[in-house]
């Protein structure tokens, strides 16, 4: 991002305090999603809005290099293009890393469904475990649907970040 295009201090400060709240709400929605409003999809979308805010205010390099630790950003890729073949650059670059996330998410969601078959139940069957007498919380509910939701969450985060990175690079 060029220097004459800097975002204002107000935006930077607000984003800094808002992003943790967004992520927290997103995780809350993800965890309660199997029987309350929320779920993997909406949690994922909300998480990506946090990323998008960082992306808009601090720039793509900050997001990928400082925040997510992907060393091979778009600048670095241009330098190494002579050495690496374009496919390698794609997979070690931002887009490649982001798109790997939705593969993992899909595997998690499908794996969660297949787990039910291992227990002799139909595909995608779910179960719930309750832990009583927990201090502070009282009852903690552990639902297998969370695995599926987590898979959906990663699919949404991965694919939206991929879109963001591809469209942002143009």
């Amino acid at each position: 991002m060029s220097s004459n295009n800097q975002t204002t201090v107000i935006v930077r400060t607000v984003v800094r305090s808002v992003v943790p709240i967004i992520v927290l709400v997103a995780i809350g929605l993800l965890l309660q999603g199997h029987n309350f409003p929320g779920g993997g999809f909406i949690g994922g979308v909300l998480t990506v809005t946090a990323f998008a805010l960082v992306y808009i205010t601090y720039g793509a390099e900050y997001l990928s290099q400082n925040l997510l630790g992907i060393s091979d950003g778009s600048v670095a890729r241009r330098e190494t293009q002579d050495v690496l073949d374009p496919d390698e650059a794609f997979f070690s670059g931002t887009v490649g890393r982001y798109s790997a996330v939705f593969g993992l998410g899909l595997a998690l969601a499908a794996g969660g469904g297949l787990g039910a078959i291992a227990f002799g139940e139909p595909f995608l069957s779910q179960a719930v475990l309750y832990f009583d007498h927990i201090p502070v919380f009282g009852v903690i509910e552990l639902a297998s649907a969370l695995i599926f939701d987590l898979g959906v969450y990663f699919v949404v985060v991965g694919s939206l970040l991929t879109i963001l990175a591809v469209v942002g690079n143009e």
Partner: protein
Amino acid sequence: MSAIVAAPLLVALGGAIGCLLMRSRPRLLRGVSLLGGVGYLLATVALARAVFADSDAILVYYLSGWQAPYGITLVADRLSVIFIGLTAIVSLAALWVSVRTIDASGQRISYHALYQFMVVGITGSFLTADIFNLFVWFEVMLMASYVLVVFHSGPEQTRAGMQYVVLNLLGSAVMLLAIGGLYATTGTLNMADLARRLAEPAAYGIAPGPVLGLTGLLLCVFALKAGLVPFQFWVPGAYQAAPPPVTAMLAGVVKKVGVYAIIRLYFSVFAVATIPDSGGLSVVAGEPFLVVFGGVILVMALLSILLGGIGATGRNNLDELLAYSSISQVGFIVLPLAVAATTLPGDSLFRAGVLATIVYAIIHGFAKGVLFLVSGAIEDHVGTLEFSQLGGISEQAPVLSGAFFVGGLTLIGIPPLFGFFGKLLVFKVGVEAQNTIGWIAVGATLIGAILTITYVTRAWERAFWGPPNEFVEELTVSPSVVAVIAGLAIIIIALGIGFQPVYELANGATSAVIDTDAYVRAVLGPESAHAIGGGLR
């Protein structure tokens, strides 16, 4: 209830996810993709054994244990298994050709995952027992095919791709609208439940008039997917733009999803409904829905046969010729349905019509698979498919040409090839009908058959005979690709010579279509009519 019903679907899904995860390791990626293809074939064989073990088995699988009509249900009966079998064989052959011919970088980045997702969508469409899920699986299949059509991403591909995407998105929107309307009017999305409710609309408070209109709207969508005239615009462009193995899948299998949906919904589920006396439909009042659908299908089939056939004879490009031929052949596939619709499901003519459609659909799947794979192999090595640049391929690549010859002759319908029986059954239905529609069908079939002979002969004479020119002389196709294509051609010959088992399988599938009651009982339980219907009324 056994998980075997979901096996092909889950294997294909596993293959797709595996391909997504293995993208950074190209050799492993190809291995996973091929393993997915082989696993799919094995899962299909296992499913077929389970379905055909019992003479009239309908295997039902309730996902996550939710009973129909509330949950998502998968049903494997003889009709779905036949189509899944076609998918398994053609997709494995096309996959091997893809591995050998698509450029390495393209295979790595997206090809295999997309290909597997397309197979997932096709399988889901064949297995689902619920019209909304049919929409979802259609979308899965189409989303993957959109990207595959524009895979080479040149200007021509982008243009054809735009046309394909826009038309199909429009189709999907209309489909969703029709399905939403059906849910509003009938109160259910489950196919078995729909059939049960439409059989006694008064008991469930359903007005059959709107249902007729909405199902008609839905029919347009399936005709679009099958590429019938007047919804055929996307076919030639998309088929030319897509990489050859994808074209083989689009023509061989994806079109059959539309045909399958027409058979399953209109000749099994909606077949029981009758048109009400009121509502301005006095001409056909009291007749079954089939009368209207039959008329519409008849017109579309006739136009497809004629326009596709005439279009194909005038083309100077092999791929384009095959694409137009595909439009014409889908006309042949659905024509017997139009004749069958003049009678009721109990009639022997109805059975003969549905049977002819199923057999012809399978034949066309194999034949177009072979033809498009051959044309793709030629394009990869010669660089063009214009007839002016081709010639003498039969001298240069005899086995490949032999496979094309078999595919072409089976389209024409020469005994003892598989295609002969398809044509025979289509003619037989027309003659047996002994009514005007039957004779119209026979006439159209005759004209269509002559057109088929014309364009196949033309393709053969222009591209394969004569002295090889300098482009063709460099044609050296990898032996494994030739072997796979020849294998498909041998299947066509084998199925023609050993037609009896195929006939029996298709006959079983036809029984599954006709016996809507058995389907309803299998999905909703033996006493479904009393147990669930009372509670929902």
